[in-house]
């Protein structure tokens, strides 16, 4: 990974202690490279994050294709965010990226646009998990946000972490980060963003709708069918397994003051 300069963003939480880089880059869910947490680091060596383009299209006035170099040349911010996985573990990651809303405003969403759909790259030759015997997910991985969620200042496209460009296993060269949602919403290695008026399909919701809702907001009060979401195991706490006590999970992963208003009037138990 190359070094990447970024200024601290005003929405970054400098009070958080980042998870060690080694754990951020060696404990990953990226099923395109395999099912084990160690697979992405071990099996993403053949993946080529360059050259790369990101197409932004659909219900927009000015559809556009961005080259990764133009994305990296944008003013970049460091955003230290909590990351909560639906599997009940968590990290703190110093991302580098830019506001997704700024990018979307450049392509001028039409008044009819209500959702933003994201699509990952499909490269079975470089991503061994995409050609496994058992069907894991319908490739390519797809995700989506409501337009107002996508335009929220906390939502970023990340192109780096820990002062360097994104390692392959973390979703190189560009990925989505939505800190108040479970990690699986943070689609990796994005090639296409499409604005639409109907709610798009999302990979995990299609796979198991009772376990992974469309919204996937971090919510300690709504259990996963197979485990409680009330607490989480922080990753990378030194001192062996006696040092790694669970901690309470916060509503909206601690970003409730900024984002709870997006969901006013909604039943978050039903729309989980």
């Amino acid at each position, binding site marked *: 990974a190359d070094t990447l300069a970024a200024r601290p963003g005003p929405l970054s939480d400098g009070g958080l202690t980042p998870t060690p880089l080694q*754990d951020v880059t*060696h*404990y990953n869910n990226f*099923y395109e490279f395999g*099912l084990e*947490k*160690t697979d992405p680091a071990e099996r993403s060596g053949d993946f080529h994050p360059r050259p790369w383009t990101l197409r932004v299209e659909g219900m927009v006035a000015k559809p556009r294709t961005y080259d990764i170099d133009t994305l990296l040349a944008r003013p970049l911010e460091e955003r230290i965010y909590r990351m909560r996985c639906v*599997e009940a*573990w968590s990290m703190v990651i110093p991302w580098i990226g830019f506001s997704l809303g700024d990018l979307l405003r450049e392509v001028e969403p039409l008044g009819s646009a209500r959702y933003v759909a994201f699509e990952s790259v499909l490269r079975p030759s470089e991503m061994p998990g995409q050609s496994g*015997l*058992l069907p*894991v*997910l319908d490739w390519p991985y797809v995700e989506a946000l409501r337009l107002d969620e996508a335009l929220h200042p906390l939502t970023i496209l990340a192109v780096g972490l820990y002062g360097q460009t994104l390692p392959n296993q973390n979703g190189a060269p560009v990925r989505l980060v939505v800190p108040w949602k479970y990690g699986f919403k943070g689609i990796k290695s994005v090639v296409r963003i499409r604005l639409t008026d109907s709610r798009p399909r999302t990979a995990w919701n299609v*796979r*198991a709708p009772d*376990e992974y809702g469309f919204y996937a907001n971090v919510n300690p009060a709504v*259990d996963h*069918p*197979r*485990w*409680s979401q*009330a*607490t989480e*195991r922080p*990753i*990378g706490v*030194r*001192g*062996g*397994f*006696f*040092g*790694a*006590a*669970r901690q309470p999970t916060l509503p909206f992963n601690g970003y409730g003051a900024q984002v709870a208003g997006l969901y006013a009037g909604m039943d978050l138990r039903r729309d989980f």
Partner: protein
Amino acid sequence: MAVSRRGPSALLTRQGLIRFGLYAVGLVPAVATFVMGATNRLGADPVNSFERTLGLWALRFLILSLCVTPLRERTGVNLLRYRRALGLLAFWYALFHLSAYVGLDQGFDLPVLLADVTRRPFIILGMVAFTILVVLAATSNAWSIRRLGRRWRSVHRWVYLAALCAAIHFILSFKVIRAETLVYALIVVGLLAYRLLPAALRRPRVA
């Protein structure tokens, strides 16, 4: 019967030594994983990998104990006198697995544990398997065998249900169906299906 000869000298017989060795070797994965976890060498999520390792070994020993009968009937190799050790190892690993989940993982959080045990099929299956193993382990002694008489065999047939529950519990512990979990489940199903074969088909060597 070996049972009647048990006493201070039992350990010194060849069988006793093998049995002792089986326990010693069988507990190596537990000790090794524990030491690695306690010294921070179990990766980024040590509690989770500790839990999973213990559960997997419980299932492995359960499967091994179910292999004893087919092995004897198909090949004539008789490991019957070591079956109790295999079954007890399965029980001990299940106990370690459950303790790791209750203590290390959930920190003895009773409301969470209660919700898990009453509401989640995945956990309920694991608890059913464990409860059966407790009963089987508690009756795996000469006194219980004498006391239960003919009923001992029917009680210990519950091991089939335990194995089935454990295999499904393993499948459900991951977000997606994994080849590894299916292989274990198929082995369990195969070993159970073998028990359904007509007696005439089951004893070609002996007949």
